[in-house]
């Protein structure tokens, strides 16, 4: 139950910060660090494919509700991100920062690409080169840099709050 609450709070905080105060640090093409991807990546890295998938799904669904598009689009995006990052759970080592950073960069890139594929290309905005250089790349870079700090916090929460509840660590799938 505590685990559930912790992730619910993480998702809610990420969403609230992203829609409000993080707008002050936007640059370029409205690029802001994507806190929700960070939460999903960290969760999948800590807990494996299935749980990562469900946390991604929940985060995406909340985002769908808040942003007013079709229900389920972001849920689908984040669910895949959670699932794919879950493959890395078996390589989890505490205090390893390089792997999660690479994961979040790749995830943000993937997310932007899916976004473009489903929500831009379908409307005839086909200029992928400009989209990559102006949107996907800066967005992924920005998210990765901010993730250095955010990951420390999320990792700390994982160890201090939720990890002691588990005795059988080998249960973590991967």
């Amino acid at each position, binding site marked *: 139950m505590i685990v*559930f609450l912790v992730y619910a709070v993480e998702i809610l905080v990420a*969403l609230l910060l*992203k829609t409000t105060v993080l707008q002050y640090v936007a640059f370029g093409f409205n690029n802001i660090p994507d806190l929700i991807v960070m939460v999903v990546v960290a969760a999948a890295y800590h807990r494996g494919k299935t749980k990562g998938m469900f946390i991604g799904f929940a985060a995406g669904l909340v985002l769908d509700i808040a942003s007013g598009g*079709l*229900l389920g689009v972001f849920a689908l995006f984040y669910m895949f991100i959670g699932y794919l990052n879950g493959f890395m759970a078996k390589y989890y080592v505490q205090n390893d920062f390089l792997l999660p950073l690479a994961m979040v960069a790749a995830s943000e890139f993937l997310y932007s690409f899916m976004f473009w594929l489903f929500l831009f290309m379908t409307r005839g905005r086909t200029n992928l080169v400009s989209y990559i250089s102006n949107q996907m790349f800066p967005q992924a870079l920005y998210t990765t840099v901010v993730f250095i700090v955010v990951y420390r916090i999320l990792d700390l929460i994982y160890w201090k709050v939720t990890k002691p509840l588990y005795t059988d660590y080998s249960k973590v799938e991967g």
Partner: protein
Amino acid sequence: MKERKNPKYDMEPRFVLLIMTMVCVFMIFFSYRFDNVFTPIRTRLNSLIIPLQKGITTIGTSINNAIDNFEEVEDLQKQIEELKEENDRISREKQSMEQSLYDLERLKQLLSLSENYKNYTTVAANIIAKDSSGYYSRFTLDKGSRDGIKVDMNVLAGSGLVGIITEVGPNYSVVRSIIDDNNYVSAIVTKSEDDCIVCGNLELLALGYIEIRDLSINTEARNNYKVYTSPLSDKYLPDILIGYISNIQNENDGLTKTGYLTPVVDFEHLNTVLIITELKRDMMGLDEDE
């Protein structure tokens, strides 16, 4: 805990993924098909997080303002000097302008031109959240249906068009701004009186432009001409300033011209907006069919 007892977790993760993907696809389909069922639920859930967003934005804005104030004091000293000089210059210009204005009024009366600017009634609202996806340009206002806000009301800031209300909850409303990649406004160019379409474009956004298209190839529009909302539009009220044309060029099809438009509204530093509480469809004398 829930995680271990749940039999779902004994399934192969890829099967769970497959099932959940289908759930998502169904949700997308149903929310598209049965919009009227999902929207009220979404609105109700959304109005729960509005107070939280409002609080965080208020705190964030005040911190941001405090930092800005600190940095700005020196700039302000300099600006005051500059403004004083400018003031002198402008007051000289004003003298001659007043004379021309008087002449203009007199000539207008002679032509008996009716003023077609309306004084729209407006409601002020604060922006409490911007869109969460980062790719759209939509934002949430702290006024909703309780304050008489309805979908399709136009939103202004200063004298320029900001956007249109697309969603209304009891305590919030969502504005899709004219710089949104998915927004189209029919517009009219001053002097040359050409119809055109103003649409947001993500690629131009960082340059501070939006796109203007479907201008007639024979147009006499030039850079810096003003662009207003068109009377032809069925959602936007007429004669609201949108921006200034720049960089007009011929389109490949040889039939139309396209160009950039600099919006009059500074979208990056937008905190308060005005909502016009008159709807275009009411003005056209149509019955509301809700």
